[in-house]
């Protein structure tokens, strides 16, 4: 009897340890990013990071201002969101409320298939197909700019947005729709004025999660945005995102140099940004599901 009890306790303990690894990994991520980045605060100093110039390799004076990288990431993310959210929500409402059941069973898995295509393949597609199109349409020297990056990112965020929004739209109680229809509203009025507004928190959370994915995406943006570190508001300019900077420069950097530490600092900024996005999305989802 005693052996059985001990065995049961041991098994429970093993499971608990396994479950706790997630907590440890999160702590270790913060710890190790912080550890490699921290000395940057002492020399060259935190103010260096807030500068407007990112020139990591220079004969005169290097500068590690992350503002151009931050604005690059934000510009690409903003455009991608402006495209992906309306398209994604429209798709979700169509799949949930308008499409027949056979159509729905085909559409949703197919769109989710897009999420399974590796980002480097999407980036490759952007490089070979989309960039020349953007170049021709706008009459540019090169198709590698913020707009091309944003279009690809929108494409990558759409499955997340469609999938989660569709769940939210579908979970709106049937009685809401029935009440609306009984009051004489048409099917479309019901969709636009009752069902979609009722699902709004879920749709919002879906958009936040999609944005989180967009801002953290690396390979596709690195391949098509042109990677010029500059502060610009024009979608047709080349930009350099935070993710692309880390991926492109980490390979050539001298171990524990200022540049190396600056890249880890960029990583921390990125981590905090996505962390905030996700926590807000989860709060919204929880509130929505709880109510």
């Amino acid at each position: 009897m005693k052996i059985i009890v001990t065995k049961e306790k041991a098994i429970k303990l093993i499971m608990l340890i396994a479950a706790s690894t997630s907590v440890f990994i999160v702590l270790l991520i913060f710890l190790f990013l912080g550890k490699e980045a921290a000395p940057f605060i002492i020399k060259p100093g935190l103010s260096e990071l807030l500068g407007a110039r990112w020139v990591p390799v220079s004969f005169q004076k290097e500068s590690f201002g992350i503002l151009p990288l931050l604005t690059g990431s934000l510009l690409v993310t903003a455009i991608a969101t402006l495209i992906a959210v309306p398209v994604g929500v429209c798709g979700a409402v169509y799949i949930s409320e308008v499409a027949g059941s056979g159509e729905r069973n085909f559409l949703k898995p197919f769109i989710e298939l897009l999420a399974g295509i590796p980002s480097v393949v999407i980036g490759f597609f952007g490089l070979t197909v989309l960039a020349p199109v953007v170049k021709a349409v706008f009459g540019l020297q090169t198709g590698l700019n913020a707009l091309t990056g944003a279009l690809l990112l929108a494409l990558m965020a759409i499955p997340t947005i469609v999938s989660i929004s569709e769940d939210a739209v579908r979970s709106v109680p049937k009685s809401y729709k029935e009440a609306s229809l009984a009051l004489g509203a048409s099917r479309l009025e019901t969709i636009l004025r009752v069902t979609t507004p009722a699902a709004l928190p879920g749709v919002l959370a879906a958009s936040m999660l999609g944005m989180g994915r967009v801002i953290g995406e690396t390979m596709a943006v690195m391949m098509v945005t042109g990677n010029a570190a500059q502060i610009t508001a024009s979608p047709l300019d080349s930009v350099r995102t935070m993710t692309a900077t880390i991926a492109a420069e980490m390979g050539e950097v001298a171990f524990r140099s200022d540049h190396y530490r600056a890249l880890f600092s960029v990583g921390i900024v990125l981590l905090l940004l996505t962390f905030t996005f996700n926590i807000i999305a989860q709060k919204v989802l929880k509130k929505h599901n709880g109510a």
Partner: protein
Amino acid sequence: MKKKSYEKIVYAAMRFTTYLIILIIAYIIIEIVWNGAAALSVEFLTDSPKQSGAAGGIFPAIIGTLYLVTGTICIALPLGMASALYLSEYAAVGRLTNTIRLAIITLAGVPSIVFGLFGLGLFVIFLNFGTSILAGSLTLACLILPTIIVSSEEALRTVPQSLREGSLALGATKWQTIYKNVLPYSVPGMITGSILGVGRAAGETAPILLTAAAFFLPKLPNSIFDPVMALPYHLYVLATQHPDAAKVRPMQYGTALVLLLMVLGINLVAILIRRHFRKRYRW
């Protein structure tokens, strides 16, 4: 009457938007398959790259990706399943459980390049594994752990509560109940979800860029402490770093196709397993 045609236009616009997405997805896949198929040959699949990727094949990259995926499964699968079992069968409502859940959500949102930095800091440098299969697999395992936990938990939830209660009422212990009455019905679902996560790991580039991958290696790796070539990284270098990028287009398409087939193939296996077992158990 006017209202009716207005409705029709709105529906048509929504339908158009949705099918536009479908069309773009189909276009991407067809573009890769069509151009990639032309580059496929026995030599391409079984030979090493020559002239820095401009000729020869991608055999070492295929093998490298398989090594990384295998390593990732070996680490992430047991850990993820055990985590899900704890959360679903043992965890009480409380601060500890909330902390674990928050950690899993956080982990799911961490960008892949940040996982790369983390893997570089912890596995490559601090634990001194170097740029290696081991460091890459550990990094990828951290990346897909949340996917495995969430889908395993979902599989566990589909097992009716009455099965557990019946077993416990007959005097079985908690573990006996889980082992004999919960796991047999939930393992297929757990594996399905995990395979979907593994598909993602196979296609990831950013984490292995910093922890495992090399563009060209003269021979296959001998141990888990050796660096490897990998399909996604190979495609990235061929497409953006190669001095004659336009000339090696067929090689790029071929690599993209093999990678796509591998990832979609893994997902297809998962879907087939799920369908097979859905038919077997109906509650």
